[in-house]
């Protein structure tokens, strides 16, 4: 928790804090009820929960699940875009795409670090990803079939991610909130680049324009699914909102995203593939057609177009890299004292 007052009340340390100093032994308030009251008060006062603060087990578990899933999405999300690095049509676009995929690896690293502050490890989380016990965003189970898909991912997928993630910059858990501040800055940049890529195509030759439209047609609905199930079916939402991990409901964020995208599509000169999409004066929002939740559930269950491919490729990279990680560990162990083994230049 951010303030000394909150820290004082709680004793400020959890049972698994590395040093156990400041343990509240002898403090009458430090029973679990006292901890819980202080935690609730800190959340209510919009204070940040920090790694050494006491937190409910379920809060910890929810955050580990959510941050891990977020990290995994960054890592798996490299694949659909990396698919086009070697085929990028100009050197400028190739540089932009390489930088973006590199940023995603960096985001994965921040997020695994944030998850590690909750008492897990990157190895453990990767193991859960590889064995299918933890998920990643369903969107990355769709294939990138043309160059325009790189633009559609930037505009729509990163756009949806930002709509989801900006409120997370105010999330109650400090390390996650701070990671999101850094990530959102870079994501906004990627989103503008994606929009600009689509704009170049849309204003290009008829073939390029058609390529852009086709990509938007294929990515629009999956992007709307990124906000998760409708509010009445979202099992974690109420608790996450009470803990201020989430600040808005899935449907609220989805609506916000649609309202942002409609004018952008118009200025791109592209249409969105939804015959029911129209402005509703009364609500002050766009109405839009029904989402195919059966498809969403199917993809989540592992039956999307690329689920198998994404996960096997991820596993293969990890397995094929095992000897490299072992070599690095063996080298570090040999040179643990003094001599680092690094060449001085």
């Amino acid at each position, binding site marked *: 928790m951010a303030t000394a007052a909150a820290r004082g009340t709680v004793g400020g340390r959890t049972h698994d804090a590395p040093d156990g100093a400041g343990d509240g032994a002898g403090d009458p308030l430090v029973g679990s009820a006292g901890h819980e009251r202080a935690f609730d008060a800190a959340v209510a006062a919009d204070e940040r929960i920090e790694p050494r603060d006491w937190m409910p087990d379920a809060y910890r578990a929810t955050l580990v699940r959510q941050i891990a899933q977020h990290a995994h999405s960054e890592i798996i999300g490299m694949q659909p875009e990396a698919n086009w690095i070697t085929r*990028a*049509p*100009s050197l400028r676009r190739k540089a932009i795409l390489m930088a973006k995929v590199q940023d995603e*690896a960096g985001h994965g690293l921040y997020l695994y670090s944030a998850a590690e502050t909750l008492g897990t490890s990157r190895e453990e989380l990767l193991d859960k990803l590889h064995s299918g016990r933890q998920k990643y965003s369903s969107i990355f189970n769709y294939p990138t079939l043309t160059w325009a898909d790189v633009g559609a991912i930037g505009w729509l997928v990163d756009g949806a991610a930002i709509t989801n993630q900006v409120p997370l910059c105010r999330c109650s858990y400090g390390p996650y909130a701070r990671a999101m501040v850094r990530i959102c800055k870079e994501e906004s940049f990627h989103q503008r680049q994606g929009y600009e890529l689509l704009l*170049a195509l849309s204003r290009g030759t008829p073939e390029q324009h058609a390529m852009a439209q086709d990509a938007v047609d294929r990515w629009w609905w999956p992007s709307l699914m990124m906000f998760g199930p409708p509010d009445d079916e979202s099992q974690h939402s109420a608790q996450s909102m009470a803990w201020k991990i989430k600040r808005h409901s899935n449907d609220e964020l989805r609506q916000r995203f649609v309202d942002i995208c409609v004018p952008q599509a118009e200025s791109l000169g592209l249409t969105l593939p939804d015959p029911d999409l129209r402005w509703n004066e009364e609500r002050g929002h766009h109405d839009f057609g029904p989402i195919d939740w059966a498809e969403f559930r199917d993809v989540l269950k592992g039956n999307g177009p690329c689920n198998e491919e994404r996960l096997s490729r991820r596993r293969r990279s990890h397995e094929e*890299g095992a000897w490299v990680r072992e*070599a690095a560990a063996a080298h570090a162990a040999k040179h643990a004292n003094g001599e680092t083994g690094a060449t001085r230049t």
Partner: protein
Amino acid sequence: MVLSHRLGEWAGNAPVLEEEVALANIALDLLGQARVLLSTAGDEDELAFLREERAFRNLQLVEQPNGDFAHTIVRQLYFSTYQHLLHTELAAGDGPFAPLAGKAVKEVSYHRDHAEQWTLRLGDGTDTSRARTQRAVDALWRYTGEMFQPVEGLDIDWPALETAWLERIARVLLRATLTVPEGPRVGAWAAGAGRQGLHTESFGRMLAEMQHLHRSHPGATW
């Protein structure tokens, strides 16, 4: 540009996340250097996407397929050691490439450091990693002689550059508990070599992939 492309093929496949970042970083630096060079000579995209294989002048070393991580690291060690020496010398002169080389040398010294550290880790790591790295050291050795063939228009003491390169490489390999290969570094297999537009077989397929989209839309802008 060619080496940058090869490194780009690693995206999403690296053995650890940190290497995703590092390899992409090096690829981006190299692409940046290539764009400056190509733009000096003409239109960068025309030169990259519309030349045929026989018109490319890159070293055969940099077009070699990635192979395993050791193979990629040794290729990088050989090339960045060379690039560092070359750019240092170019930057010190007053030729047309001095400003470019001055900027590149900073990037390349990072690349060389990265490659050297990994050579040490892999060579002096486990038995498996040493065997793989030695194999890469031996396999790529034959492509290293070409780097020191005089290039028209570059006023460089090539034999001195080669001596400095051999010394530095030998030092790193020995520290990594690896053996400096005894095999030849130039020969019939490289007759004419990359500088004359004679490439190895995998290069054509690399270009086919790289150029396909650009060539499918003649005259389009991206």
